[in-house]
């Protein structure tokens, strides 16, 4: 009787330890990782590029510039499919900078009427560029085939919780979308955020703004699509509280005035706006800022929630077609 009860006692303790171990295992196990089906369609279509409704013959993912923001968590699997409809004229492809997979097999261009699929695990946290790599790649990016994928860290406590988040993608706009030599010669007409000239500049016709409340930690997932120019990203009237190179919480800088993001790269920027007012976010490469790359962050107590990429697509009436 005594032996039996001792055995029962050990059994109960073993059960308890097993439950704890299982719990710990589940907490760190990749079993928790999700699989995301991400489907995009290459669309050759006109998009609005400024507040006056000017249209541009773009090449896009899903009909918008930038393409949709993809968001997963570190360790998640992405099952990606790109469709190039037969109504298109050109081959297209997809290169995810968040993926670590064979380029030859996965990033090849597919002709109109074809589809390509591949799978990757988002192993490293950060904000990463994605883009079409079909030749000439400089033209496919210049015409709008790019976007951002955010890979959130598996450990959410790896960095402070953001109160508000935005995705900003810088790129160059060329007057003639067919003039590839001008793209090689860096003869851009505008430098833009999220596909529009002064899209978030309230002092410009049709311009909007980015909203925040005073005291909020605003997190900007920033990607420079290029194709050629570097960005010197700076908050006028503020200092970046933290900058995370490539958006990885392990790559942390503090108290940064201006941070350079090269073409094909990205970084995550945190700023806590201390008081109500306007804080323009610009590339301090001024030929870029004054030609379109200004986004005004307005801090106001009555700021409303906003999507990751406000005003994408830019939903205003197109003006009568003129050559651009």
């Amino acid at each position, binding site marked *: 009787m005594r032996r039996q009860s001792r055995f029962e006692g050990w059994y109960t303790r073993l059960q308890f330890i097993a439950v704890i171990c299982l719990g710990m295992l589940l907490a760190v196990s990749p079993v928790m990782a999700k699989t995301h089906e991400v489907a995009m369609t290459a669309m050759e279509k006109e998009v609005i590029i400024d507040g006056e409704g000017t249209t541009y013959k773009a090449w896009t993912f899903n009909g918008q510039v930038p393409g949709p923001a993809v968001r997963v968590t570190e360790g998640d699997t992405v099952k990606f499919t790109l469709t190039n409809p037969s109504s298109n004229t050109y081959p297209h492809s997809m290169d995810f900078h968040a993926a670590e997979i064979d380029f030859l097999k996965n990033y090849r261009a597919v002709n109109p009427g074809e589809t390509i699929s591949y799978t990757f695990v988002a192993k490293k946290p950060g904000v990463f560029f994605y883009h079409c790599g079909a030749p000439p790649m400089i033209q496919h990016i210049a015409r709008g085939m790019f976007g951002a994928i955010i890979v959130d860290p598996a450990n959410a406590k790896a960095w402070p919780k953001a109160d508000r988040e935005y995705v900003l993608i810088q790129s160059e706009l060329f007057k003639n979308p067919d003039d590839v030599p001008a793209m090689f010669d860096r003869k851009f007409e505008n430098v833009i955020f999220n596909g529009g000239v002064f899209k978030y500049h309230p002092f*410009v016709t049709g311009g909007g703004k980015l909203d925040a409340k005073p005291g909020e930690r605003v997190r900007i997932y920033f990607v420079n699509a290029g194709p050629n120019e570097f960005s010197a990203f700076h908050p006028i009237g503020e200092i970046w509280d933290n900058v995370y190179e490539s958006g990885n919480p392990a790559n942390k800088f503090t108290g940064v005035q201006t941070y350079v993001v090269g073409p094909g790269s990205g970084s995550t920027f945190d700023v806590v706006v201390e008081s109500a007012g306007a804080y323009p976010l610009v590339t301090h490469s001024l030929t870029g800022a004054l030609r379109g790359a200004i986004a005004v962050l307005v801090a106001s107590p009555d700021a409303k929630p906003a999507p990751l990429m406000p005003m994408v697509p830019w939903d205003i009436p197109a003006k009568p077609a003129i050559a651009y």
Partner: protein
Amino acid sequence: MIRCSVRFVGSLAIGVIISILFISAVEAATQRVALMLSGPSCEEDQKAIRQDLEMMHGVKAVDLRSLRGFALLDVEASTASLDDLTSAVSRQHREPRQCRAQVMESCISTPQHGLNVHHGMPNP
């Protein structure tokens, strides 16, 4: 022969009309003007300021909400002058200086805006 000429003249006339309409549409492009408002009555007189600005010839939209302390105006570029717009803010009040408007100029003024500020827009 006469029918052909009539058709030709008709087509030509329609083309000219369409071109004129198109050119008018292009000329009537709007421009955003940012006025910074300062003075003790700017907040309480918002409604009156809005009405005064909306009555100005060429003013298509007035936004006093997006940016506190500013009036964002969409104006037909060739119809209203900046002086007219700024004086419209103050002149309707008994005490003219209770709310004063200035065209906002800063490091984020675009080249287009800088041009308008310095040269002004012509009166109608």
